[in-house]
């Protein structure tokens, strides 16, 4: 998977036609094989842009920041990224006319070990769902797979699971990198940081980490697109996807196979309901 040339061409064209103020893509990291986001404002830098299976980071995240707010942005999105973008559009965080979307039919990106990343193996929608221009050949929606790690953890006993997660929360340092790297965490001020609402308190203890992570996860339930930006950003390498995938699974299995950001104007599972939703868990 290498769209470097196409993307450079598109970027050149867009700048030439004066369609965009900034182009958000990837560039090669100087000293290792990883790639990092690259915000091109000067056409001279277009040559830096690349796209390969190492183009991991979900660039929709950059639409949150002042560099891009109310600017005209060219953006490269893979399947999952585009779903996030779709939600941002639906939740009117981004004006459609302000973004020129270069959609990618993704063949899966590689993780640190150089093998296909888990979320790509389990990907339900590799093709961009919203785009102005689509690169590659669409392979269409795939069958939903229950996350392997969840299956494994589910086999374990309740106590083991509790121990496991206690360890997770213990290792969380509450830096909130997960949140800041999530395209869908665009709130003007996150509830976790609101000293006014006595909801949370600043202490970085494991219990408050648990509280914060739970709330964060539930705010993303039915919205998370499994791009795993959060997990990549987490300095403690916490398995945050477990929480998101767990919710995704429950939602998929119980609420008309709902998957986040697939259709335009779908706001996520918690903002609609069906009379036939499961009721057996309620006395």
């Amino acid at each position, binding site marked *: 998977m290498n769209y470097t040339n196409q993307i450079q061409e598109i970027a050149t064209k867009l700048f030439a036609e004066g369609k965009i103020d900034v182009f958000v893509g990837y560039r090669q990291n100087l000293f290792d094989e990883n790639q*990092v986001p690259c915000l091109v404002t000067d056409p001279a830098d277009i040559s830096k842009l690349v796209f390969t299976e190492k183009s991991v980071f979900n660039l929709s995240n950059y639409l949150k920041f002042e560099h891009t707010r109310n600017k005209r942005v060219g953006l490269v999105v893979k399947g999952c990224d585009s779903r996030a973008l779709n939600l941002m559009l639906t939740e009117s965080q981004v004006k459609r006319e302000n973004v020129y979307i270069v959609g990618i039919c993704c063949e899966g990106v590689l993780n640190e070990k150089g093998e296909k990343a888990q979320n790509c193996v389990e990907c339900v929608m590799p093709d961009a769902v919203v785009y102005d221009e689509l690169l590659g050949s669409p392979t269409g929606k795939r069958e939903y797979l229950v996350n392997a790690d969840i299956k494994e953890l589910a086999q374990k006993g309740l106590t083991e699971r509790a121990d496991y997660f206690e360890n997770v929360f213990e*290792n969380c340092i*509450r830096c*909130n990198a997960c949140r800041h790297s999530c395209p869908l965490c665009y709130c003007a001020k996150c509830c976790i940081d609101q000293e006014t609402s006595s909801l949370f*308190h600043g202490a970085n203890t494991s219990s408050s980490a648990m509280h914060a992570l739970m709330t964060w996860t539930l705010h993303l339930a039915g919205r998370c697109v499994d791009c795993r930006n959060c997990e990549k950003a987490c300095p403690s390498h916490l398995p945050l996807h477990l929480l998101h995938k767990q919710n995704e699974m429950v939602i998929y299995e119980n609420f008309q196979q709902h998957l986040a950001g697939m259709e335009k104007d779908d706001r996520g599972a918690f903002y609609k309901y069906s009379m036939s939703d499961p009721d057996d868990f309620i006395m």
Partner: protein
Amino acid sequence: MSFSIFETDKAGLEKFYTEVISKNETYAPVEAFGKFDYKRVSSLSECMPDSPIQTTMSVKPLFFPKSAKVMKFREDSSGTTLSDTDQDHLAGKRVVLGVKHCDARGLQVLDAVYKWDYIDLDYQKRRENTIIVSTRCDKADTNCFCTSLDYDVENSDAHDVKIVNGLDGKIYIKAVTEKGDILVKSSSIQHPASAAAPEEISKHYKSFEASFRLKMNYTEINEKLQKQFDSIAFEEVSKNCISCNTCAFICPTCHCFKISDEKVRDNGVRYKSYDSCNNGYFTLMAGGHNPRSVKYRRWRQRSMHKFVYYKERFGVNLCVGCGHCAISCPVNISIFDVVNHVANSPAVLQNA
């Protein structure tokens, strides 16, 4: 005065570690979720004091925890009564194994601020009670640049005990402080190093120094930066940043914290926890004004604090060149690149 220096080999070193662990409350790099952090250990097998891998968190949390109880309080009709927290780990003597130069230096740097106008007793106590044993740094990591900064890595006294490589598989265990000396003496490794040891050590150090990818002229950078406060370059370097705070939380020398109370029924605990100047609202004021509302200003603060302000005030550079931040940054921003870029870019004014 000079302290003892012993000579041994890999097996001997492991023996040394094992003894230390068995005799003391010991902390060493332990793996969790594929990253290394300093944790309490009870046997050599569960930790890797000798690993070249940089830990995710620095050694800082052992002295300035991510969240420390400051005090307890109780509120009822009789008013508010305060009480100390039961922080056992304050009391005991402890040993930390496998600490890198940079991390150890970080502690020295922090001492400056903690011994400054307000003396943080908790911190002091933790420092006094801790013996720091270094790891064998014989190769620089991609993001390391400790050697380019304002301190002498080779002869640094940040550690109490140094573990250094000699030639052909020799390993020297070198006490640097009194605390360290006691620890070393107490071990069964008592084979004194040959006279050639210092030479071998510095030889080895040369090869170590040579392995650095990142090098900078510190004094030059420091001077240039002082003039760059209004540089537009900060805008440039901060573009990629997603303000995720990771760098600050894992930095060995960042020491911003916030105070927060947790209260249930009548009882409460006051916590002191990490905070980060990369937070959009770190400087948000009650009135709603926020002097560092935009990213480049926060980056300016971060860079300048690390490379200019702290030096001015305490005579030491705050950044120790460990590369923790660059490693953990989700978008691979390295403070090294940032300061270099800013320092060497033409002084274009922000408002120009």
